């Protein structure tokens, strides 16, 4: 099926829950109301004409400068049966973004949703094991949000280079640009 037919099928089934649409792009997409996404996911997988049996990717996106500011979750779908693709998007508020999980439809969403949670703090309600997947468990904050500010330290390790370190680097004193056997004084010699 082409994108237009897929959109018509979704619009006929879900009505105003399919909010936005863009079909004249490389990867045609529709915007789905956040509370409906689990039903839409189950439908597009089960429907014999659509049969989106593969969730290729699930991503989080942060748009702080849009009006109103929003987060998005983007679902790239593929059908091994019909060899067609389609994209679903969900708009979420930047404050406490939450939406139902699609883990029940595509089990691969388990890890993808954990990653979106890890990086953006998007909560997938009903997820079987929603915890950080890449960052350490004791990490604080959501680093891929656009308003993220690096902490100075994490567990005693410096995260942001100091001004002095930057100046040393700009002066060409940084490790890695000198001769092979250049060894700076051990920074922990005093301990």
């Amino acid at each position, binding site marked *: 099926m082409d994108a237009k037919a897929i959109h018509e099928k979704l619009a006929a089934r879900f009505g105003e829950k399919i909010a936005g649409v863009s079909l004249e792009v490389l990867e045609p997409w529709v915007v789905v109301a956040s509370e409906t996404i689990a039903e839409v996911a189950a439908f597009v997988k089960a429907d014999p004409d659509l049969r989106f049996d593969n969730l290729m990717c699930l991503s989080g996106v942060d748009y702080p400068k849009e009006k109103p500011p929003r987060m998005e979750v983007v679902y790239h779908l593929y059908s091994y049966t019909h060899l067609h693709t389609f994209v679903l998007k969900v708009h979420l508020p930047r404050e406490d973004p939450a939406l139902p999980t699609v883990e029940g439809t595509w089990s691969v969403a388990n890890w993808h949703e954990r990653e979106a949670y890890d990086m953006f703090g998007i909560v997938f309600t009903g997820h079987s094991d929603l915890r950080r997947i890449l960052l*350490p468990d004791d990490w604080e904050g959501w680093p891929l949000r656009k308003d993220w500010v690096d902490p100075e330290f994490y567990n005693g390790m410096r995260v942001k*280079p100091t001004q002095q370190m930057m100046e040393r680097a700009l002066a060409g004193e940084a*490790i890695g640009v000198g001769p*092979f056997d250049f*060894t700076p004084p051990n920074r922990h010699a005093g301990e």
Partner: protein
Amino acid sequence: MAPITGIIQNKFPDAVVFTTVDQVVNWARKSSMWPMTFGLACCAIEMMAAGGTRYDWDRFGLIPRGTPRQSDLMIVAGTVTLKMATRVKRLFEQMAEPKYVISMGSCANNGGPYWKYGYHVLKGVDEVIPVDVYVPGCPPRPEALLYGIMKLQERIQEDRVLRRHPESVGSLTGATLENR
């Protein structure tokens, strides 16, 4: 030659070799640096190439070991994330003395491309463990790593094992991490 050394001059057969204990110990240490099998990112691919038949670090006496307990050398090959940094430190602490560290590639040296905006990357592995030799490159070619290994061998050969350190006269233990 004038007979000045008295009773031991010209008393030994050809098979006897004279040297210092420091020389022998250092020669043994530098000739069998066993690295830990340990790679973090793309630098590890170059490290594996250095261990393969073409570059063959076996000829330097490097035999990769599967455990820090049997290793003398840690080659930090790749990006050290903050999450991994605690593990790297623990692995280093599990190695028996004497132990050496080669920091391989820009990421391990100073964070590399993650220097300014990498929220999750340690700005140089020497923040958590002492480094003996830094090998620059992104990633360094196997030749560069081998050159770093040879530089480390030179440093080991200069090490003072039993002899006092010049600036620590009076101390019994001269060879420490800070002044070797």
